[in-house]
């Protein structure tokens, strides 16, 4: 259940010759050897970098629409003959959207909001839910009952429904979407934190620490937090992919980001009528969501096996 605590202390005679490594060094070595995870980390780093540097590297203004140029096709070869000006062929390598805005530019800019809206709710939920779960697990008793029974109510809603219920009531907007997704991810994180903390709290070394006169806060800090953080963190990373899909899904429904902002889900929504004329352009933002979400999932799986966490 719990994260494996640093365990190199016992050196048997067989391994005595090799120097023992710390836990994080072992995790790092395992990650470096895992080619799939490293590739995903690289792709995500590139996506993040492209999103951050969008104002510097994007070829056009993300908001500037030009109707005569609307719905240009994807790819350089397809654009041949679209314009007399030979330079114009290279102008929109990813085509243009329904208002003639450059797709490459908007995909780059879209990454900013899509990543931000996907990661922020999970981070918020990690802080709030982790705190609630650790408190519930560590204190037990009526505090545990109060927190866990409240969380049970939220478990009565399928996650998509809960997100849409809150977002739909609060109305469209970036903040509302983040609030609703935060509420969606708090319950599962509380459950995991509570169960991990409960199992750590009852371990012998915690009793030993208490018997040796260590204060509650010190026990919490030294013996509990250090051991529960790994599993809770890994669980949270596994939610990022869902969060990105849901956040873009809210924008796709018209609930999250509002036009004319660039966000992958919203772009997918406004390009829906174009599936009959420029399907490859209309599908592009969704492909960006897919790649990001696959990479986050594989990265989370890799971290989990590298950190040897079982939840």
């Amino acid at each position, binding site marked *: 259940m719990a994260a494996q605590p640093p365990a190199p202390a016992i050196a048997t005679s067989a391994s005595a010759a090799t120097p023992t490594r710390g836990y994080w060094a072992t995790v790092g070595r395992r990650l470096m050897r895992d080619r799939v995870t490293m590739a995903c980390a690289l792709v995500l780093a590139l996506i993040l970098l492209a999103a951050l540097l969008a104002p510097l590297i994007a070829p056009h203004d993300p908001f500037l629409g030009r109707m005569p140029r609307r719905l240009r096709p994807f790819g350089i070869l397809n654009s041949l003959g679209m314009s007399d000006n030979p330079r114009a062929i290279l102008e929109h390598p990813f085509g243009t959207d329904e208002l003639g805005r450059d797709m490459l530019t908007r995909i780059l800019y879209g990454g900013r909001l899509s990543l931000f809206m996907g990661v922020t709710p999970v981070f918020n939920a990690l802080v709030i839910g982790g705190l609630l779960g650790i408190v519930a697990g560590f204190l037990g008793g009526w505090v545990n009952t109060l927190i866990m029974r409240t969380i049970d109510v939220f478990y*009565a809603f399928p996650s998509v*429904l809960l997100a849409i219920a809150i977002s*739909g009531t609060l109305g469209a907007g970036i903040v509302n979407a983040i609030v609703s997704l935060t509420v969606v991810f708090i319950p599962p994180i509380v459950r995991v934190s509570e169960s991990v903390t409960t199992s750590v709290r009852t371990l012998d070394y915690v009793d030993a620490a208490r018997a040796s006169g260590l204060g509650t806060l010190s026990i919490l800090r030294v013996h509990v937090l250090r051991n529960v953080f790994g599993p809770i963190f890994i669980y949270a990373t596994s939610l990022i992919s869902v969060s990105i899909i849901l956040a873009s899904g809210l924008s796709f429904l018209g609930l999250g980001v509002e036009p004319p902002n660039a966000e992958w889900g919203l772009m997918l929504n406004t390009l829906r009528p174009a599936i009959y004329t420029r399907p490859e352009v209309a599908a592009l933002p969704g492909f960006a969501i897919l790649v990001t979400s696959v990479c986050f999932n594989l990265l989370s799986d890799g971290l989990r096996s590298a950190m040897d966490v079982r939840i």
Partner: protein
Amino acid sequence: MLTFLIRRILYVVPIAIGVTFFVFSLVHLAPGDPLSAVVAGDAPREVVDMLRAAYGFDQPMIVQYLRWVARALSGDLGRSLATGRPVAAEMFAAIGNSVLLAFLAAAIGFTLGAILGGIAGYAQSSWLDKLASLIAILGVSVPHYWLGMVLVILFSVNMNALPAIGIGPAGSAFWLWTRTDWSHAILPAVTLSVIPMGIVTRTVRATVAETLAMEFVQALKAKGLPGHAVLLHVVRNVAPVCLAVMGLQFGYLLGGSILVETVFSWPGTGFLLNDAIFRRDIPMLQGVILVLAMFFVLLNLLVDIVQTLVDPRIRRG
């Protein structure tokens, strides 16, 4: 066992109270006066007060809540602000369509997931395992609303083989069990099935692998039991976990179909919810969410009961 069942069933009551309270408070979470959807901004005060009294918004919160619950219990979910029709009647028409879509998606997703996961768990680290794991990862990572669009592009726009929207021939709002109706259901059902497919694959794979590593499997093989008989033992041990996951997934299919129903204009509860949101039709919104959440609560109860019946270890615990 009986005490466990009774306790589990009674536990539905506080959950249900919590759910109704949450759904009720949605009205007051909404920005602005709940009356703003029905009254013009420049309406005279008397009219506003009269409507406020008519809707019961002048009563204290707790009275409003109790009245709302009492009416909901008798099957009256109020009237839609947009159409004036009873919410329950609109729900009744839509929920059948949603359940049908969820059943089709579950049939596809669970079957594929069980097969892929079983193969992957049995042939660990082989190329089959890697392929199945790849499919599973794609299944859980794909934005399904986008997959719906891609399938429409491929099968409706390019190949002109399957209809892109609706539940039947133009204007039809009900499922009629004809061939055209089936062809309308294929794309949305496949789209909706990818997530449960991925999740079931991963669960079955992990559980099968875990079970195969247990000592009793070694013992069965050692005593010379043929492969298919060992498989039977493995299935019996894997089944409870997988049933639980499938049960939950079915609930997610029903509650989470709003995106797919929107892409395919499938006249189910998700479509209704989408309409309600954009018309700011709060009674409709509350009604749909309440019914879907209650359904999910009962489904969870059912899953727990079935799991207890199937797995004797839980019964004793």
